[in-house]
């Protein structure tokens, strides 16, 4: 029994160290560039190229690119292609992203199912019938191509699937463990306190007695964001929560939930605020509605997106110090500086990864809590019969 267990553990350690070895070498090779490259197969080593590289990294992409290296003056890309699934003028088409040969300028044309596709700045275009190449207008927008509905498993979608799978495996296992005993074992012991943390520190205090209904959503969103952020920190090139589309979707989920669950009390405070002069009420209603309908979801969306994107840009910029500052500081000095600074920022990013997941979940819980809160306590009334808000109401209105 113990021998078997030992074997399993050592196997796991081997797997993990393999993963670490691969990712570490991937990272090492990415930084170490050959300065003798030709222009066509040029390593990324000038400031402009690095900027472009970072810009490219923070965006979603159709293939999974781990690193590139140079040998014999040629650039080799290491990574794996991802399926491209398109709904174009000729219906559903699917092919692997390797068909584009890492071309992002619209030169490589993939013919599939009677349609011609090109990839341009991370976007796939379908050429009009009969066209043999992309034509651009002055602003470099293609003129003879349309955008099909892109259902591809892009890098971010791949990451979302990986995280979803991980969450499902971990937590459904934890859920099954409770059938055998009241106390989980193994990795479940790590997960359980996190679940309790979200329930007791985020859901309960912000939502109140109705917390149970929303805890499932909050747990999902918390672990999804946290794992996405952490996956983004691993040197694999993921940037899931740094995609505006992803954070927008998450923010809209929260928005829809608190709009659907808002009770009469919530809407009365939104539309016709009690306890203020009647003339002010329409003004307040506009402010409140702007907050509820636009500012709250928008702030959720932008906060997460900006924090994670900024984190990625900062970490990559600090890493690129090792390349850009070689002339000024000697290779050793610049590498040491970039290692030191990027290590420091990466540690902070680990904290930020948790913090942003916490903030998003906490604010979601707070917004939901404001929408579903019961104000069953008695208000004092002044001479005109208006409610005198107590400290609790004032606090609730300001947060």
């Amino acid at each position, binding site marked *: 029994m113990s021998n078997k267990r030992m074997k399993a553990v050592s196997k796991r350690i081997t797997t993990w160290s393999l993963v670490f070895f691969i990712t570490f070498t991937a990272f090492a090779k990415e930084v170490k560039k050959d300065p003798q490259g030709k222009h066509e197969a040029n390593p990324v080593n000038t400031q402009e190229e690095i900027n472009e590289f970072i810009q490219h990294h923070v*965006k*979603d992409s159709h293939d999974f690119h781990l690193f590139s290296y140079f040998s014999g003056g040629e650039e080799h890309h290491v990574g794996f292609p991802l399926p491209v699934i398109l709904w174009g003028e000729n219906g559903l088409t699917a092919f692997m992203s390797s068909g584009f040969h890492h071309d992002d300028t619209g030169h490589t044309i993939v013919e599939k199912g009677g349609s011609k596709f090109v990839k341009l700045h991370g976007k796939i275009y379908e050429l009009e019938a009969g066209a043999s190449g992309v034509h651009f207008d002055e602003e470099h927008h293609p003129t003879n191509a349309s955008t099909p*509905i*892109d*259902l*591809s498993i*892009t890098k*971010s*979608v791949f990451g*979302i*699937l990986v995280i*979803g799978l991980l*969450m*499902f495996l971990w*937590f*459904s296992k*934890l*859920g*099954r463990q*409770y*059938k055998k005993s*009241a*106390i989980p074992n193994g990795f479940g012991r790590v997960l*359980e306190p996190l*679940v*309790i943390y979200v*329930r007791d520190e985020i859901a309960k205090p912000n939502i109140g007695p109705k917390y*149970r209904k929303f*805890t*499932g*959503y909050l*747990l*999902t969103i918390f672990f*999804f964001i946290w794992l996405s952020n952490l996956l983004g920190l691993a040197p694999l090139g993921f940037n899931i929560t740094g*995609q*505006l*589309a*992803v954070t*927008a*979707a*998450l923010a*809209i*989920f929260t928005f829809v939930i608190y709009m659907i669950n808002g009770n009469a009390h919530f809407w009365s405070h939104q539309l016709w605020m009690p306890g203020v002069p009647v003339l002010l009420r329409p003004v307040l209603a506009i402010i409140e509605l702007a907050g509820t309908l636009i500012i709250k979801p928008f702030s959720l969306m932008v906060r997460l997106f900006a924090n994670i994107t900024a984190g990625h840009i900062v970490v990559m910029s600090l890493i690129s110090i090792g390349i850009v500052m070689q002339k000024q500081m000697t290779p050793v000095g610049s590498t040491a500086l970039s290692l030191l600074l990027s290590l420091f920022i990466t540690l902070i990013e680990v904290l930020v990864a948790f913090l942003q997941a916490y903030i998003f979940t906490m604010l979601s819980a707070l917004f939901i809590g404001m929408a579903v809160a019961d104000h069953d306590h008695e208000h004092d009334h002044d001479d005109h019969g208006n409610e005198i808000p107590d400290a609790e109401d004032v606090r609730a209105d300001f947060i």
Partner: protein
Amino acid sequence: MEQLLENFSLDLFVKQTVLFLVLIFIMVKFAWKPILKALNDREEGIKNALDSAEEAKKQMQNITADNDRILKEARAEREAMLKEAREIKEKTIADAKEEAKAQADKLVKQAQEAFETEKQAAIAELKNQVATLSVEIAEKVVREELSDEKKQLKLVEDMLGEATLN
């Protein structure tokens, strides 16, 4: 703002929405529901266990208090019983003494009375005997005295002489 909009990919938004919706439903069904239920049950169980422990402690305290009380009562009772027994003993002894004394007194009295009676009887007997003896002696003496004439005469003379003196 334009940069933001350019970064926004509607395709990814739709994919994320659908995938996340699926994820929420799967996680709620297969993970969060059983986990939260198990946690709730466990916390409920712990709470109940603590409550019943508290209850047991209270009962224990009650029992201890009862025991103490009973012990105290028993001790008091024993004390009372001992005291009573002592009193009874003393009373019994006193009674016995008194009775014995009374009996002894009575016996002594009876004895005295018997003795007195005997004495009286003896005295009476003695008196009788003495009287008889005296009479007999007197008779003998008188007979002796009066056996010759001279002596009779002398007696008469003595008696007359005494009578004169009186």
